[in-house]
């Protein structure tokens, strides 16, 4: 049964990893606006004559 010590340790680490991911997602503002991204993803990046210019906008 001593394997349990390691397994429980790992399972907690994995869970902590998910908690960390959640905290990161909240901090990066992913929960601030739950509507606009769903619209934004449908826009075409290409304009009618000029080639698309990938723009990264600082979120924070």
């Amino acid at each position, binding site marked *: 049964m001593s394997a349990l010590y390691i397994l429980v340790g790992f399972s907690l680490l994995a869970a902590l990893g998910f908690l960390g991911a959640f905290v990161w997602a909240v*901090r990066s503002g992913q929960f601030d606006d739950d*509507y*606009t991204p769903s619209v934004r993803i449908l826009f075409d990046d290409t304009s009618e004559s000029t080639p698309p210019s990938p723009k990264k906008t600082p979120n924070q």
Partner: protein
Amino acid sequence: MKKDEITLEPAVTETCYHCGDECRDEPIHHDDHSFCCEGCKLVYDVLKENDLCQYYRFEDSKGISPGADLYEGKFDYLDLPDVQPKLLEFTDGRQARVNWLVPKMHCSSCIWLLEQLHRLHPGVVGSVVNFPEKKVRISYDPTQIKLSELAELIARLGYEPYISLKDVEGKVLQKWNRTRLFKIGLAGFAFGNIMMLSLPEYFDLGQSSEDQNLRLMFTGLNVLLSIPVFFYSASDFFVSAWKALRGRYLNIDAPIALALLGVFLVSLYQVGTQTGPGYFDSLAGAVFFMLVGRYFQDKTYASISFDRDYKSYFPVAVAMLKEDEETRLPITDLRPGDHILIRNRELVPADAVLASPRAMIDYSFVSGEAELVERRQGDTIYAGGRQVGPAVEMEVLRRVSQSYLTQLWNNDTFTKEKEDQHQTLAARINRYFSVIVMALAAVTFVFWISRGQAEIAFNAFTTVLLVACPCALLLSSTFTNGNLLSLFGKYRFYLKNSHAIERLSEITSVVFDKTGTMTLANEAEVHFVGEVLADEEKAMVKALAAQSSHPLSRLVTQSLAEVPLSKKALLDFCEVEGAGTSATWGKHEVRLGSARWVGKGEEEVLADTRNPRVYVALNGQVRGYFNIKSKYRPELAEAVTNLRQEGYELYLLSGDKPTDRDLLSPLFGGTSRLHFQQKPEDKLRFVAQLQQVHNQKVLMVGDGLNDAGALQQSDVGLAVSNDINNFSPACDALVEGDRLALLPRYIRLAQAGQRIVKTSFGISLIYNAVGVSFAVAGQLTPVVAAILMPISSITIVLFTTAATNLAAHRWMNVK
């Protein structure tokens, strides 16, 4: 005569390529498209120049025509050194960022356009839209584009940013949302893991001696996991309970905090003395569910602000004249004696004396009086009036904060909180509930002590507190109200918070404002009374009325929308202020104006004082008049009748003259219920009197700043707005104008909500009774607690959600 033959052009309805509106005047043809105005054409040009025409390919694209009140230098004040830093979120000299409220964004193509700003100006680094909050965050290079130029850039597209005095005075950006999410996330994490680690305990595993170490580790981990839940996630409950205790009253959080503290201490005691595994799973689960419930309940309408005062309406800066030079000055810096310039549609920010010969002031904002007021040189103009017409010069009399209008906010009503914690339904039930639970726990304790079983007595006492923890009660009201809030929002009725639902369900009196609430703000019923006019004559009248900028002329022009436009030029046009206009059209003389202007007798002049009339005279002969009546909201009469039949006391308060008294008195049940010419303070006093003398719970329905005092004083202040993202006074609820007729249904839904809270509380009582009977007997094992607790929470969540949706369906979908 051949020469006099009318050249009429058929009235074709063309829709504007940019804004999709019908072109009311002559459409502008440009680039194979038609535009309704120069503004729309300009936006099209800008978009075309920058290859952004794919904007028009969006299915719901409906551009905004930039308002006519945009002028050169409007945003110059943004570059003032004491204004700019307050608006910027961030700057390091090379990059700066602003987060502007843009109330006019309304569809996905707006999002697209506002996020393409970098293609319109090289100085813009990027922009990100938050649609629910109607905000756009723009990063730009201040060395390439000034803040004022940036504002002008988006204003020219039709998205004028809304910058108010409140922004400049500096308010803290709330990040509570994120903190709450952290707390919920942590509680959920701990809840799941503690449940997993408690599994052996549920099934009585790990009793053999070699498993003792494992058991010790699991318990230790449970304690470790519950510590952040208790000290961080649940901290709001303790803080709120402590505040209530210090203020010497009991709120709903006090018993919750007590129960959480009790469970935590008992669990620690059990672990420490090795007498049991504790109830850490129940603790974490209860905190998790309660936090989720509160998050759900407090989820607000991000783009709607319920707490506006006059500062939100007033401009940030005003044009000041100094030695004939125009500079922009923040209005808070205005001093008596300063000369200011007020342009068309601009608000007068402070009480001032008119220096120009004449001004037409629209006081509808302050008094509810819909008609323009004429002011002459030397007259005092109170803050809150709006100039209509050419720019006028004024000399400031008093500072902004001491002006007549702003004085209203010094009334005590504006400092008191409406939310009374111990008046809510949950808090009232809770008072009895807590007493009963405490008594039960005490009786149990005494019973077991008297039988000499101190161990069981102690255990039973704490577990009774645990299962009877009022979280079920809290959950039933938070989930019911939270779901109702979003349902109300779906039916375009926006409540400030859950307390407002409860107060709405207890209403006994409804007080209506007239102008803008009962009537439509910018529309009127125009009837022609007199000899019927021939088509040609109508064309003449329309041609003349279209020349004048007087609001009555504009209403007449609007009412003649069907009449084709005349191509014939008017000659000898003359307009006498306060009287009327005249011109010759071909061989005919046309006169429009007051009774005296067209040469009517005295009795007609007297009759002129009720509804505004515009008389028509052709070739010196009076043909009749246009009767202009304020237009009532359709269907509202039915709603008012419904309310009266259901036994509500109805009143009408109007800042206006007593027009339509005969029309309104049968609706409201007698003229004694109609009060005209009420000043803002009168309205406030009237509501206060209803509450104090007649013991009524008052719902005030109003729209303008003139109702601000009454809205604040009433139990529920409902603001009517034609565009909820526009600006309305501070209130508890907002409704779109065309939905106001549904008011009786909204009240019924709120009442249904209260019944649902009571029923779901009854359901949780059954669970509690089962749990308590185990606890009293000293038999509440961790496994029973672990099953009962989440099941009761989930049942309540499911029941309240289903019941509120059903109630909404029942009350709101009947047509």
